[in-house]
């Protein structure tokens, strides 16, 4: 028992230190946060003691809640936690099916089925298969379950597992989930590759592109890959005040890849928009309604694009997809350091004027034409489907 206690204490220490690092912004940026979350969850799962997957779900949900609270406007930690929860639930259902002998079609189920959906409704199944056509995923095995079904199974499971008490089974379960998380990490770190493959089809020769998010690695990789086969010009907005330095670095990097690059002030976006072929935006997080949160200033760019009917492409990894709906805009937009906007030294102004420096912008779904993700391109109105595919409804609220 003492070693158990020690394990538990150790893992709590680890959770606390990650939470504190998140709070201090020592871990920041959706990619880093996502990877850290995966690694933390792996440790939690291997260290914690549980007799039934339900308990594990509780444990993970608790950790997730802490992580979300630590950086409430960084959605990727919550997304990863929900992905893992959905993974566990899928696995539970499979087990159920095996235990109860009514899920024969899932026996050779492969762990990567988290991308796939579990629905038994006919219409939904059809959509799901259409979705599968668009995706690069080969695995088309559908698990059969729905909400009611799940409830029944839950009660069956609890009674069944209480009787069976299979330690080896728990061990198996544990390793399956950890394997699943490892694959999730692989998916996150190879997102660019999947997105890049689409870039050649989307970008034409001699096209003028505009990107208002120079901080995004995905956007950079997307463009760099396209350059291998196409020749085009990229306009980079300066993104005052928060990302100006990054914009300049980004332009240099693009130029190093022999892409014609022009840095333009934020104010000229409307003026140049008539000549722009496509606007490429990197998203911070994408919501179930098809809207997304990106760097400040992008909403205005998208409005301009709409005025000129210029297509707006949003590139984002699947892990940025959040099952939440953006009801409260205030809770989405982080407000940053006022000192970036105005010199704090200026004693005449400080205290006599109000300064606000929002770091993010919310872009409404109407202003976005297509989302390019690692599982394919979707219209904003289709995003809710992908949300349903990847998350379970009962995990949306991590309470």
């Amino acid at each position: 028992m003492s070693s158990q206690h020690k394990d538990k204490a150790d893992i709590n220490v680890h959770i606390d230190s990650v939470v504190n690092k998140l709070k201090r912004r020592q871990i920041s940026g959706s990619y880093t946060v996502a990877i850290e979350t995966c690694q933390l969850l792996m440790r939690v799962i291997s260290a914690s003691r549980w007799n039934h997957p339900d308990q594990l779900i509780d444990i993970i949900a608790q950790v997730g809640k802490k992580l979300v609270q630590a950086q409430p406007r960084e959605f990727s930690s919550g997304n990863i936690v929900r992905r893992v929860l959905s993974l566990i639930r899928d696995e539970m259902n499979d087990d159920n099916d095996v235990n109860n002998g009514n899920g024969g079609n899932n026996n050779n189920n492969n762990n990567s089925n988290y991308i796939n959906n579990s629905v038994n409704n006919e219409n939904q199944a059809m959509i799901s298969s259409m979705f599968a056509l668009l995706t690069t995923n080969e695995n088309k095995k559908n698990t059969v379950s729905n909400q009611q079904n799940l409830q029944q199974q839950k009660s069956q499971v609890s009674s069944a597992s209480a009787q069976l008490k299979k330690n080896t089974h728990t061990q198996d379960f544990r390793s399956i989930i950890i394997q699943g998380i490892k694959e999730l990490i692989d998916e996150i770190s190879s997102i660019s590759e999947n997105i890049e493959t689409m870039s050649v089809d989307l970008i034409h020769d001699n096209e003028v592109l505009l990107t208002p998010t120079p901080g995004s690695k995905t956007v950079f990789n997307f463009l760099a890959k396209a350059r291998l086969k196409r020749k085009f010009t990229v306009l980079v907005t300066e993104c005052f005040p928060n990302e100006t330095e990054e914009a300049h670095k980004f332009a240099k990097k693009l130029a190093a890849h022999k892409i014609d690059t022009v840095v333009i002030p934020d104010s000229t976006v409307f003026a140049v928009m008539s000549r722009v072929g496509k606007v490429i935006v990197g998203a911070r997080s994408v919501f179930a309604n098809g809207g997304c949160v990106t760097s400040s200033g992008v909403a205005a760019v998208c409005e301009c694009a709409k005025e000129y009917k210029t297509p707006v492409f949003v590139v984002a990894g699947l892990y940025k997809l959040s099952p939440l709906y953006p009801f409260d805009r205030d809770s989405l937009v982080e407000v940053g350091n006022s000192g970036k906007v105005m010199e704090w030294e200026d004693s005449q102004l400080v205290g006599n004027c109000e300064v606000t420096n929002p770091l993010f912008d919310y872009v409404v779904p109407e202003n976005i034409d297509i989302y390019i993700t690692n599982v394919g391109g979707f219209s904003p109105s289709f995003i809710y489907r992908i949300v349903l595919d990847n998350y379970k409804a009962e995990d949306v609220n991590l309470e």
Partner: protein
Amino acid sequence: MAPKNKKQKEIVQDERLQAIVLTDSYETKFMPLTSVEPRCLLPLCNVPLIEYTLEFLAKAGVDEVYLMCCSHADKVQTYIDGSKWNQAGSPFKINTIMSLESRSVGDAMRDLDNRGLITGDFLLVSGDVVTNIQFDEVLSAHRQRRLIDKDHIVTMVLTQASPLHRTRSQSVPSTFILDKKTDRCLYYQDIPSINGLKASISVDPDLLEDVDEFVIRNDLIDCHVDICSPLVPVIFQENFDYQYLRRDFVRGTLSSDLLKKTIYAYITNEDYAARVESWQTYDAISQDILERWCYPIAPDSNLLEDQSYTYESKHIYKEKDIRLSQSCKIGSCVVIGSNSFIGDASQVENSVIGRNCQIGTNVIIKNSYIWDNSIIKDNCQIEHSIVASNSVINQNVKLNSGSVIGFNVVIGDNVIVAENTRIVERPVKHLSDSSYIGDSLSSDDEFYQDIQAKRAAEEKENIVEVDEGAVNDPAIVGENGIGFAYDSESEYGDYDDDEVSSSSKHYHGLVYKLDELYLSDTSIVSSMPNRRKKRRTYSSASHATATDAEHDYNNNTDGEEDDEEDFNKEAIATVERAMENNHDLDTALLELNTLRMSMNVTYHDVRLATCTALLQRIEHFINTQTLGVKDSVHKIFGKWGQLFKRQVFEDEEQVDLLNILESLCSKLPNNNGPTIFTLALNDLYDNDILDEVNILKWWNQEGYAGKDENTRKVASKWIEWLAEAEEESDGSAEE
């Protein structure tokens, strides 16, 4: 963790980064609240001050933290024991050091040296720093300089601001002279303030000898974040008289010829760093945090585990479970803690409201800080005030600017609290003659009571409301109120010899006044015309550079007028003291001379001051009828006239002395002037301070405006006698 992998090759040192936190400021600026709570636990935006410092240390990647505790050490210890920093997940090891005996930063450093805890370069911070600085950059800058300059012992972190910045300390404004290229600190000085007016700085040209270009900067915020080498505590140990980190240590080290150590500054203008060292900075830093100048440190970063602040536009921060009436108005920059209630038609702006506060209807709260569990009833108006925890403000009360309501105080109905009033629950006793300058009166309760009992008798004379809580002060807190006015003046009485403390009276605890100070130049012009002139000089000087020391002298002359005024007062006081206590003549002369040199004034001023003092004394004797005119003059000038022996050297100076004496005597009341003058003249002549030749020269000089007919009439007889005597002596010499 970042600093660990930086430049480890060259510097063979302990890898652990240690930090020393001085939880006590050894000052009394936050009295009377610090008589109840330690200063580092006072809430700033509803978070204890120390949390901001520890958060900074955690971010800086510090491995070990030592808290030097003095006043209320037990409370600090209890707090830390129960905090997240003491738990397993804490990023550093935290230790509290009970240094109850220390009375100054110097004492704490010496204590530290005695304990032998320091193993390598360490971070010295005070427990009231609020900063978001990128510390790894500072540390690597420090280490790089260390490689170039082996004598480098301290890096001070300074923030670029402007001379009149609200967050800059106005009570201890500091001037740094830095080498322009390397940021090496050449000289440091608190600008000596005289009655709240800024004066000058004077620099020894030797210090600037081998410097190409230097800058004099009066626009920096000194947040007391220093990276020190292990030598620093040792230097404190060797110089047992060092009290202050800046005034004594930095100055001493820089001006010492023997030590040959260097101190560098690290100036940041992107990051935020400031220190809560007075009510003024408390106010300013609170506003800075709310306006997100210190991002990511903001209320919604929820530094305490149980906090749940969320941000709303216009810089409004709300915790869970607050209740706001539908018709209340929440303006910009407001923090509201959980379980608080704000009633109908109340207005709140630029304020911080703690947890469990009840605010009634029609209340107006502006630029104020309401701490936890306070109750404010209907129709109150609170502006630029601080209401500490558990206090009750009854209906229709008006708190005027600068009020500080202490813990557990109750203010009765319809009371109007005057500006800058500080109210405490129980009268605070002053250990007036002890040299103690800690934050609280005593760290040890028993000791405190003991002292209290002993002093009860004496104190009855000094403080009217001595009875513990039995009699309240209805004039201040109303009929059903609980509380006493806190007499801050007596507090300052302790430090008459301390320039800075006495001048800080003007800045002290007066949230509102300071507000005025930093909000506009014009208000300064109207209230203190002199200051603006000085400020200007310095703000321009702060950016000016000079290539040689000459420039520096030019700067100095600006301050001289102020110096003289100040010198006069000081010198007169010195002479009076000497006469009263019957000091040695040499002692008095030494004191005067030191004063003359430190203020850089001429002998003329010394003479003027001495004459004034002597004549005042004589007048005192005459007025109290202790002695007659003749006796008193003889007594004073007979003995103390000797002072002039070392103030008068040249012939012209003798004439000057006579001129001074004449003009002063003519101003004396009761027509005694001429008589006193003649008698004094006689005494000075007898004591060989004045030569006949020079007296005659004075007598015969023409065109001197200060001639006083009455004096001349009376003195003429004596002059005649003198002239005759001279002729006689001349004659006898011829024979």
